[in-house]
């Protein structure tokens, strides 16, 4: 028997992707020649200063917008989570999830039980009947996660999903996210401006430059899971990345 090294096809590939908003003198070059590949099941964190094109990159991958040049390949379905939960306020938590199932053509009877299962996955079993405004920010974000999972996506895009939460809730949601991703073979692109969060969660951290956004460094994260955000190893790598990030940002001050 021969052991052939078969390169698994990447779940997400960006080759030479640029995005320019507007035209003429007021044109903004948000992304410049970004090339990036994420393997199936890989958790990639994208980090960069605010305004460097992180959200732009995700909406291009999600197909909400077209790149000005370059090519994007996505293998499978995509779900996107925003910093705000973006739940429909007129529907209960369970109904929000059921709607995502319905959009995929899941039958009525199955929708109910699938939604209950998904609420259980995010530890919100008792809260299906609540409307979004009756839940805390962290709980809403978990409903949004359950809704994203309901889309049975292969690629999960997350745009600073925990950016508006308090530290304690955020840390707990990191654990939740680890648990949800394990065993689902989800490919995740996770955008954040919090370096520690990136190191805590990612298999790999990709650093983007500011204006225009470009990949300037990549850091594999060889830290064993389960990880804690206050672990020494996490802090050390985060320190290295922060230094590089500061260097990049201060380039703009000159």
């Amino acid at each position: 028997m021969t052991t052939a090294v078969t390169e698994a096809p990447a779940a997400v590939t960006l080759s030479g992707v640029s995005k320019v908003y507007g035209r003429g003198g007021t044109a903004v070059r948000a992304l410049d020649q970004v090339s990036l590949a994420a393997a199936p099941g890989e958790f990639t964190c994208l980090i960069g200063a605010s305004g460097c094109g992180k959200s732009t990159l995700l909406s291009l991958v999600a197909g909400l917008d077209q790149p000005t040049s370059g090519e994007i390949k996505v293998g499978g379905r995509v779900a996107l989570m925003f910093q705000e939960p973006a739940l429909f306020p007129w529907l209960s938590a369970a109904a929000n999830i059921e709607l995502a199932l319905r959009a995929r053509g899941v039958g009525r009877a199955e929708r109910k039980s699938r939604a209950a299962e998904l609420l259980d996955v995010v530890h919100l079993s008792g809260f299906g009947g609540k409307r979004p405004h009756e839940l805390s920010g962290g709980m809403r974000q978990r409903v949004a996660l359950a809704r994203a999972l309901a889309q049975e996506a292969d690629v999960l895009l997350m745009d600073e999903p925990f950016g508006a939460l308090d530290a304690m809730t955020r840390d707990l949601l990191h654990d939740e996210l680890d648990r949800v991703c394990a065993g689902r073979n989800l490919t995740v692109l996770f955008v954040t401006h919090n370096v520690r969060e990136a190191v805590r969660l990612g298999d790999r951290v990709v650093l983007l430059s500011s204006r225009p956004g470009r990949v300037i460094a990549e850091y594999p994260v060889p830290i064993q899971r389960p990880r804690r955000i206050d672990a020494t190893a996490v802090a050390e790598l985060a320190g290295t990345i922060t230094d590089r990030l500061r260097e990049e940002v201060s380039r703009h001050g000159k």
Partner: protein
Amino acid sequence: MASSTLAGLDALDTQEAAPRDRRRLAASAWAGLWPKLAAVALVLLAWELVHLTGWKKFVLPGPGVTLSNLWQQAQASLLWHAIATTLERAVIGFALAVLIGALVGATVSRIRPLRAAVGSLITGLQTMPSIAWFPFAIILFGINTTAILFVIVLGAAPSIANGLITGVDYTPPLLLKAGTLMGLRRLSLYRHLIMPASLPAFVAGLKQGWAFAWRSLMAGELLVIIANQPSLGVLLSTDQDQADMASVVAIMIVILVIGLCVDNVFGMADRAIRRRWGLMAGSDAA
């Protein structure tokens, strides 16, 4: 451990609101009611004072005479008959206006090029006082109910269409992104996202449309007098011919009360939606 900490946080975050017991309900009903009662008392007081000064005392009756006139009319069937006729016209006219307004609004909001043209047409229609349409309507349809309904629809439909268009326009872009990514397309996007999201603006449009409909109807009933069909407008103009001021004011009170009641229904619908969506001022906004 983590999941139990999470459960603890959730419990802390979702303190049950203190149950609304009967006394608190009564208190909030009273809080909504007393300013209205005070307003009525104020009007009656001012009216009585004017009456006491003796200004125009031969034509202007005091509140006592007027209210007892109203009470007497309420004992006879004529007033109720008139109210029934008027309300029937209001219901049919408003229903037609809702149907046409919603159809136009839905079509216009979907078809971009139509948008600019029909948009300014709607605004133009809204600035046209509906009473100015009556000569046109009477020549077109004759002195009959159709003429009245025609003007009601012209008065109310633009507001309703406008409400719907505004609602569609202001569907939050973030929700639109979420819905599209979820796989909601065309009709299902309309049904599950755009329609519910535009409900508050649509209800506001209904409320404004009703105000226009009620004004148009009253103007119509005063201008388009149909023989053998007593309506509130007919009663008013008969009273005017007989210079029966007490009865005129009594009918005006009826018209005011009906208008306010229906307006209140839309107000309640609006509040119910806001409560459901968590948009009430004072409730947890975070």
